């Protein structure tokens, strides 16, 4: 930790970055994918970004970004003084300025404390416009670590009762935390035809229960899975609707007002029709 402090003194830069934690409570709703895509979109728009994976012991963010073979040091090494903070950062060469601070795969959540994470985030905020923190599932120490340095929070949920109830719990915890973070909501894996048939919670119901600001919707798309598989975040694909959703969310984070995507299945049919026409299938 001494070294981190040293670094703080040495690199007294003037940037005041925004630290945003991406969290959900429930696992598998798309925290890591959302972190990777918002980070990518911010980098595409020319902002300097540092992504921090706090899911120690189960790191995934490096894989989704396609940087898994390039990480040498990790967040635990920084905390224990094995390396300096800047040595642990992995640069994503596809972008002007996007870096990743990987989590350790061999340790567990108790290897770092919230204060240590906060110190790292505060340091990174001086160097980057945005620091995105990928939070692990659950409400234990990993969650506490992840929110320690955050100024803002994005809560990811899917239109399922279990995910919404867990998101609700997380929102409650964020609201009551010492830092009083007001979270914003991303609804992931939206399937409009299931919402219309009543087999899934619809957007209005989710908003009624959670009653926080909606940052955006992401449609359920196989391309998202394929993109993670290839290590190329889906938002780099200009024609994909999920990717567009992430770019819209990013623009809203930057303060632009962007209307929500029209998700009605009618529209979707029209969209696919257009796509098929473009491809010469119809």
């Amino acid at each position, binding site marked *: 930790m001494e070294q981190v402090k040293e670094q703080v003194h040495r690199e007294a830069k003037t940037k005041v970055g925004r630290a945003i934690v991406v969290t959900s409570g429930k696992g598998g709703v798309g925290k890591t994918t959302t972190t990777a895509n918002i980070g990518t979109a911010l980098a595409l728009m020319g902002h300097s970004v540092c992504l921090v994976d706090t899911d120690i012991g189960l790191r995934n963010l490096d894989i989704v970004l396609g940087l898994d073979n390039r990480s040498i040091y990790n967040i635990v090494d920084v905390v224990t003084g094995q390396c300096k903070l800047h040595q642990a950062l992995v640069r994503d060469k596809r972008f002007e300025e996007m870096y990743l601070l990987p989590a350790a795969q061999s340790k567990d959540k108790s290897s770092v404390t919230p204060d240590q994470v906060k110190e790292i985030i505060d340091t990174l905020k001086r160097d980057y416009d945005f620091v995105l923190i990928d939070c692990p599932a659950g409400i234990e120490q990993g969650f506490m670590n992840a929110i320690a340095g955050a100024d803002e929070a994005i809560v990811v949920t899917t239109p399922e*009762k279990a995910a919404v*109830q867990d998101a609700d*719990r997380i929102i*409650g915890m964020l609201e009551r935390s010492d830092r009083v973070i007001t979270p914003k909501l991303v609804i992931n894996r939206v399937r409009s035809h299931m919402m219309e048939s009543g087999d899934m919670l619809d957007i209005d119901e989710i908003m009624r*229960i959670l009653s926080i600001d909606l940052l955006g919707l992401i449609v359920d798309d196989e391309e998202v899975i394929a993109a993670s598989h290839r290590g190329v975040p889906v938002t780099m694909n200009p024609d994909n609707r999920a990717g567009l959703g992430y770019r819209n969310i990013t623009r809203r984070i930057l303060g632009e007002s962007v209307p929500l995507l029209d998700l009605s299945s009618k529209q979707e049919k029209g969209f696919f029709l257009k796509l098929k026409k473009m491809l010469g299938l119809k």
Partner: protein
Amino acid sequence: MIERKRFVTMKGHRTGLAVHVNERCSVEEFLDDLELTLEEKSVENGRAVPITFFFGRRYVDEGVLTALESIVARHDSFLYNGYESDCITKEEAKALYGDRTFHYFGGTARSGQVLDVEGSIVVVGDINPGAVVRATGSIYCLGALRGTVHAGKSGYQDAVIAASILQPKWLSICDIVYHEIEEEPAEALDMGCAFLGESGLEFSRLQTVPQARMDQFAIDSERG
């Protein structure tokens, strides 16, 4: 023989004897006097007369009551029939007053949150699925009630549960439980209210809650 100083006064009633105890003497004094008085008034082979004690502004604890009961028990002609006192402890007062105290919770009670109060609670917001609200008194929710609620948890029968939108996951008043899957109404009730009626748990619109429950509202509103 010198007339001894009396610390207990006996008065006959239709239902038995009322024993008024001096408020200012020591416990030993009135217990001794009681012993002697009962001795004098004992009747052979008579029917046991119930005695009720009146302590006025004297506070009596368990120890005194036990001594009192054992004295009465030694005399076959008398039967201990409880006591009355104008004094209670702060704790007892709190318990008495508890159901009528109001607590306020601003904001939405979210999943995992537990609000447990002595008295009634007003939630200025929603009660979400997964949140738990328990009260010895009533529960009023200004928003949508979708969580788990238990009113009158220590047996206060007049407790009510009211909400702008009443759609609980689990609702209970005293020890009567309503579960959304087993019973009606499964639909959300606008301006709904749940209370204990003659046939158990009943649901109705807030405006049609029986007069008995409305009295409770009236008293509370007078107290401000």
